[in-house]
Structure formats: structure tokens, C-alpha cells
């Protein structure tokens, strides 16, 4: 729609007139004002005929009636996503009742006599009104987008509050994390919290399937259920006294109490999700480990999560494979415990698939080999490893759009 309200030479007008009538006077007046004019009889108003025309202005006979005018408006609004929406103006032929209906129905109008000077003035004000309406519509859309963005940014703030504010400072250990959502809000989360009066440490990295706002709402449920159950069960120091010497491979007090806590938290969360939310189809892959900070023993449940990588000081690596299915996916899931140990010089990486599946511009994934090449560097702190891994992932993806949430947690023992 050109800015000149009176229309320019290239402005085109489609006149849709009543069957058997020719809008001679209107046609002549428009032509003399420099418009390109096409005339269509109402009876020819088949979808194909209108599809071909892309007028700047449509002048439709009021005799078409509100319903057909509405369809016409709908047609133009849908085409090109409304980019070239013409101004639809009705005109009276001889039926002033029909004109009144259309005007009450919200259409702008012109009425005879169609003399060039009168017409130009009327069209100018019709054009002004049309542009004003378009502007108001656009402002309303922008306001609602701003409102939506504001809501999303609130959601993001709230969600960031579900992550630990600060990671615990532990003697002999270092923890570092990276959390980069693909959208404003994420389905990934991590959690680190002390258990058993500081003798144990809970480590959680989880990925709620899908991403965006739906995943984020379920992230809040999973995180809360896991942490709440864990904190309830792990508030006290492990009660079991060391009455007898431990057999080799048998978990220590933290490990043993940790085992019960893990099963309660993970199986309990699974039961809750399946009972209340199965139909919604959100599940999470969850790695939940409990570390005995003095012995380095790690007991864990891996619920369908990408296997964390344990890198011993001596080199090589161990993958902590799933010990059960994703949480919240199946009604009759059983979870077993895995066990490992972090000795001085060892590193543990827990991550989500957003890391290994990060793609470069050609679509190639970061992959397990690149991940192991970084994680396998010995003698680094968690902070250094996290920095190196984040750099490697960013280097790999370049300018490609981040498709999935990226979360990683490194833990090193010194």
C-alpha cells in the first residue's frame, strides 16, 4: 500500500459489481485519477478469479452482502500472510439498505455521485482510516509479543532459581558446570547438594524430553521431586554404625544410606510421574549420584541418561551406563544401583545429549569422540575441563543454531 493516500498511477483497483451492472461512473472517475482498474462481476467471484488479482484497493458493491465480503476479506488476509492486504471499500449501487448493513458491519464506504473530486477526497480518508487500522493492529500484535517475551523472561528467571545458586566449596574436590538453554527456558537441569550432614554430595544431571516451555514446566516437577525426596531421606548422618569390618566392594555408611535414598528418590519420582502425568508424555533421563566425600565412593542410578564419563588419573575412561529406564516413561520401571569410585586425580563428567548432539553448520554432531578427547585430558581441574569442553563445543558449532539445551558438570578430585 503506497503512502500517497490519493493513490498513484500504479495503484490498482478491483471493482466487484453486482451482476448485470457496470459501474460506469465509478470506473471513469477512477481511471481519470490514474488508477488501473479491473472489473469483476459478483457472479465471477470464484476463488480462482480473486486469487489472480492482487489489487491495492477493492471496491465491492454493497449488494454482495456481509457474508461474501467477509469471505473476500478472509481470502486476502490469508494470502501472502496478509502482507498485501488491500483496503476493501464498499459502494452503493441502488440498494441503500445493503450499504447500511455493510457500514454497520465495519466496512468503509463510498456513495454516488462518483465525481472525480469527491471520490479522491473520500478515497483519501478511506486510505487514512485503513492505515490507522493496520497500525493499531500491528501495535496490538507487538504489545502482545512484548507481553509474551516478558512472561518468558520471568519464566527464565524462575527457572534459573531452580538451579543451585552456588556450588558447594569442598576440600579436595572441585565442581564446575555449564548450562546453556537452547531457548529462553530449558528442559535440562543439574543439581548439587550436600547430604548426610555434609558427608555426602548429591549430583543430579537430567534432561526432560523436548525443550522449551513444556519441558521447563516438567523440569520444575522432576527437580523438586528428586531433591525433596533426597533431602528428606538424607537430612541425618548415616545411621548405620560401623559395627563390623567392611568387606571389599561393600558400600560404606554413606553409600549404603545413599542407596536407599537414591531408590526412594528415583523410583518414587517415577511412580509419581506415571501416576499423575503419564498421558502428558513428558519423561526425563536422569543421572543421580551420591558421592561419599571422604572415600570417593559413588553410588548412582542412571535412568536412561547419556552415560557419564569417569576418567581415572591413570588414563582411559569408564562409562556409567544406564541402570534403569528414563524416569516417568514406564509404569513398571525398576531401577538398580551402579557403583564406582573417584580417587585423587580422577575426573567425572555428567552431561546431556545437547553436548554430544551439538551440530556444526554442515549438520555434523560433536559426538562422543570429541567429548572423550577433552574429558580425557589428565591433571586438569573441573574448572579447566569445563572451559575446554565449552570451548570445544562452541568451536564445533560455529554459527550453527543451538538446537538443544547444553548442560555439563565436571567433578574432579585433587
Amino acid at each position, binding site marked *: 500500500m503506497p503512502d500517497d493516500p490519493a493513490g498513484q498511477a500504479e495503484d490498482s483497483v478491483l471493482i466487484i459489481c453486482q451482476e448485470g451492472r457496470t459501474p460506469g461512473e465509478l470506473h471513469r472517475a477512477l481511471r481519470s485519477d490514474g488508477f488501473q482498474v479491473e472489473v469483476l462481476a459478483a457472479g465471477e467471484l470464484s476463488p480462482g478469479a480473486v486469487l489472480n488479482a492482487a489489487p491495492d484497493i477493492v471496491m465491492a458493491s454493497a449488494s454482495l452482502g456481509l457474508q461474501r465480503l467477509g469471505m473476500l476479506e478472509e481470502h486476502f488476509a490469508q494470502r501472502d500472510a496478509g502482507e498485501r492486504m488491500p483496503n476493501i471499500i464498499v459502494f452503493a449501487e441502488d440498494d441503500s439498505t445493503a450499504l447500511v448493513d455493510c457500514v454497520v458491519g465495519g466496512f468503509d464506504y463510498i456513495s454516488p455521485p462518483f465525481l472525480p473530486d469527491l471520490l479522491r477526497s473520500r478515497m483519501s480518508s478511506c486510505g487514512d482510516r485503513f492505515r490507522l487500522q493496520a497500525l493499531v493492529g500491528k501495535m496490538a500484535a507487538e504489545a502482545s509479543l512484548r507481553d509474551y517475551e516478558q512472561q518468558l523472561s520471568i519464566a527464565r528467571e524462575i527457572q534459573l532459581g531452580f538451579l543451585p545458586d552456588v556450588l558447594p566449596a569442598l576440600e579436595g574436590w572441585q565442581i564446575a558446570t555449564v548450562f546453556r538453554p537452547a531457548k529462553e527456558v530449558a528442559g535440562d537441569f543439574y543439581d548439587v547438594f550436600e547430604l548426610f550432614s555434609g558427608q555426602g554430595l548429591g549430583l543430579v544431571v537430567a534432561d526432560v524430553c*523436548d525443550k522449551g516451555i513444556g519441558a521447563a514446566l516438567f523440569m520444575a516437577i522432576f527437580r523438586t521431586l528428586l531433591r525433596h525426596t533426597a533431602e528428606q531421606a538424607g537430612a541425618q548422618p548415616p545411621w548405620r554404625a560401623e559395627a563390623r569390618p567392611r568387606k571389599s566392594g561393600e558400600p560404606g555408611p554413606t553409600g549404603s544410606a545413599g542407596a536407599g535414598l537414591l531408590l526412594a528418590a528415583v523410583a518414587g519420582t517415577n511412580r509419581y510421574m506415571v501416576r499423575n502425568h503419564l498421558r502428558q508424555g513428558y519423561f526425563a533421563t536422569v543421572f543421580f549420584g551420591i558421592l561419599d566425600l571422604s572415600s570417593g565412593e559413588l553410588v548412582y542410578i542412571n535412568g536412561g541418561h547419556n552415560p557419564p564419563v569417569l576418567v581415572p588419573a591413570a588414563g582411559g575412561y569408564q562409562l556409567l551406563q544406564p541402570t534403569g529406564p528414563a524416569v516417568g516413561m514406564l509404569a513398571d*520401571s525398576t531401577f538398580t544401583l551402579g557403583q564406582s569410585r573417584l580417587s585423587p586425580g580422577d575426573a567425572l563428567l555428567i552431561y546431556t545429549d545437547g553436548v554430544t548432539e551439538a551440530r556444526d553448520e554442515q549438520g555434523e554432531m560433536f559426538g562422543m569422540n570429541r567429548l572423550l578427547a577433552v574429558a580425557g585430558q589428565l591433571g586438569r581441574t573441573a574448572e579447566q575441563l569445563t572451559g575446554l569442553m565449552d570451548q570445544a563445543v562452541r568451536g564445533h558449532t560455529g554459527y550453527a543454531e543451538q538446537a538443544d539445551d547444553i548442560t555439563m558438570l565436571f567433578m574432579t578430585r585433587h
Partner: protein
Amino acid sequence: MTFSADPEFSSITATIRLSGELDSGSAPQFEQVINDVASRDVSRLVLGMEELAYLSSAGLRCLVFAQQKMPAGVPIILTGLQPDVAETIRLTGFDRRVQIQGRADA
């Protein structure tokens, strides 16, 4: 890679051939096909995955959704899985809910 999910029906079996990448972008398209299939009276659902190059967690969610939508007792058979797709299904434990076979025409 463009995703496609083309259903075919025989007397008792619905076969959906998947190709491309099933992720959050293509998930709605697949869910629509599943809704269509679930509304028919079939007693077996075969998902031909020979051409499926990638399955994200959102894609896996679709498979879980498919399993919920199909009437109980209708087996879901996945055929011709590429290694990465098979690994995603195995890791999350969903392999216990479906039958996995080598080839779609086997």
C-alpha cells in the same frame, strides 16, 4: 534433512516409513500420522526406520506417545534401526516396550 512419515495399511498392519530426522521440529508431523493410525483398526504397528537418520529426545517422546495412543495389545515393531537411533532407544530403556527387528520387510 527433511522428515517424512508415510503410512501404509494392509489388512491388520499399519506400516509407517520414517525418513530424515525426528526431533522437536518434525515431532508434530509424526504425531499427526500416529493419531490417524491410532484411529483405525489395526492390530500391529510397524515403524520402518531404515531411512531415519536421527532421533532426538523429543522424537523419542513421539514413540512413547505412539505406544500410549495405540490400543493395549497392539505390538509396535521397529525395523531397520541405524546405530545411533538404536542407541537412543536402548539408553532410555524404551527398547523394552517395543519389538526391534533388523529389516522393515523381514
